[in-house]
């Protein structure tokens, strides 16, 4: 029988919450729960705390595993209705619970995390009790990992809203109780946010609410269940990018007044030597083929929504063979500018429009992979920083197109 909530210790109030969203994570949830429990006991031992699993009514026994793990910290399980899925919907239930518990600080960690340590809880949680309202994670990631973040989410949020948050869709982060109320009351909720758009939505709202943001250095790379990027890209890409575009429409009055960008405070040193992330394999042939195929399947959309010179430049890139392939950063920026305007003006069916960006994004990714082949992680980070400066410097062009000039 379905039970929306299980609260065996009858917890009514908690100052600090560690939350773990899940869907069918029975085989992996125990580890992050144990690490969270140790983190709470070691670093927040004098604060009333609770671990919450917010779940999509998993049918693999996630709930039973979660509630069965022996912890010193009390636990609460909450679930969406049967058949209701989506990471964002889990968060919505979480926001309600946080407001009900009157929690002051909340740390969220993924259920499939294999590299979490108790110190992650400390570093994501402590700044929330020191004047910061949102704590984003700072991991060392492999240079080919997180390409949606590197090519779209980071440069766009940074240049739009002016705050340099390197992992705006990190999945593990902290936020204050005040923000939970703001999230619940926001009128920007959408189907995309109810799914994978939730992370970028939360970061964007925190920026727009002028909540003091810091980044917490996690020391260890994020290691979690490997996903097949090909299989997952479509819906996730649509939800993340669609959410970024929707937020741009909503928050135009804010971002149109932002110039350049500012850094954040950094927390979490003293984690010892930084561990290097595992290598990520990229199939350049697939990226090249999917980019080329995009001209067969999406040209009619591109010709309708992109500036003529942008289409011409794309055709030039198309003619390059794989060895000489190069997708210039300014072309990528021009493509994104045109897509954001087309999305706002509803020049094409929303999902088809977002899907048609994927082949171009894969072309941009191929170009980055080729350039980064001989780079260290640090050098690839510098390359991304340079690209971000180009995004910021091109903001005047974005404004011009948005203002219809």
């Amino acid at each position: 029988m379905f039970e929306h909530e299980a609260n065996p210790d009858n917890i009514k109030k908690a100052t600090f919450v560690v939350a773990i969203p899940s869907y069918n994570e029975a085989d992996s949830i125990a580890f992050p729960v144990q690490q969270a429990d140790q983190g709470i006991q070691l670093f927040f031992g004098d604060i009333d705390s609770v671990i919450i699993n917010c779940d999509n009514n998993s049918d693999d026994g996630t709930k039973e595993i979660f509630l069965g793990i022996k912890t010193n910290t009390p636990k609460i399980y909450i679930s969406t209705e049967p058949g209701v899925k989506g990471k964002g919907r889990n968060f919505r239930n979480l926001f309600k619970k946080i407001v009900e518990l009157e929690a002051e600080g909340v740390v969220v960690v993924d259920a499939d995390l294999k590299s979490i340590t108790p110190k992650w809880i400390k570093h994501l949680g402590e700044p929330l009790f020191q004047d910061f309202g949102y704590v984003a994670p700072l991991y060392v990631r492999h240079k080919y990992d997180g390409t949606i973040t590197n090519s779209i989410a980071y440069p766009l949020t940074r240049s739009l809203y002016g705050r340099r948050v390197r992992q705006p869709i990190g999945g593990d982060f902290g936020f204050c109780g005040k923000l939970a109320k703001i999230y619940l009351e926001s009128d920007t909720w959408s189907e995309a946010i109810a799914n994978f758009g939730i992370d970028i939505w939360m970061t964007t709202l925190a920026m727009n609410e002028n909540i003091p943001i810091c980044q917490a250095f996690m020391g260890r790379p994020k290691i979690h269940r490997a996903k097949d990027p090909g299989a997952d890209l479509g819906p996730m890409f649509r939800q993340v990018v669609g959410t970024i575009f929707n937020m741009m429409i909503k928050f135009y009055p804010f971002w149109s007044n932002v110039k350049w960008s500012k850094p954040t405070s950094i927390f979490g040193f003293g984690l010892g030597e930084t561990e290097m992330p595992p290598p990520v394999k990229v199939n350049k042939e697939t990226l090249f083929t999917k980019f080329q195929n995009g001209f067969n399947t999406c040209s009619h959309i591109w010709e309708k929504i992109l500036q003529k010179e942008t289409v011409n430049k794309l055709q030039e890139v198309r003619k390059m063979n794989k060895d000489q392939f190069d997708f210039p950063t300014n072309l990528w920026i021009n493509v994104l500018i045109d897509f954001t305007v087309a999305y706002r003006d509803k020049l094409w069916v929303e999902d088809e429009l977002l899907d048609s960006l994927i082949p171009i994004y894969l072309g941009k990714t191929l170009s980055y992979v080729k350039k980064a082949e001989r780079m260290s992680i640090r050098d690839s980070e510098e390359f991304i920083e340079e690209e971000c400066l180009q995004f910021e410097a091109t903001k005047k062009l974005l404004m011009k197109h948005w203002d219809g000039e």
Partner: protein
Amino acid sequence: MAKILVVDDEEHIRLLYSEELTEAGYEVITAADGYELTERIEKEKPDIVILDIKMIDYNGLDLLQDIRNKFYNLPVILCTAYDTFKEDIKSIAADFYVIKSFDLTELKKKIAMALEANIP
């Protein structure tokens, strides 16, 4: 007129920056070390800090962290003779960094950008 605080333990650098940046239209004050730097910032209220990373008794990256925690939006530009500091993650709390040079073109460009940066 924007006020710049230059923190550097090398006297010739302080003199060079003072002269060039004053000529460029800024008010420049200097500090030879990081002693009570946040207190000094509180008192002098500079619009931007130019901070040397390697000083004899002070680590510029630790000072940067103190500044960022206390003055969330105060622009800080790191100056260094070597770029190895980039290996330290703390450096990303700076607005910009520049490699020390007698040609201050890059530094002036970064100062202008940092002062222009605006979040409503």
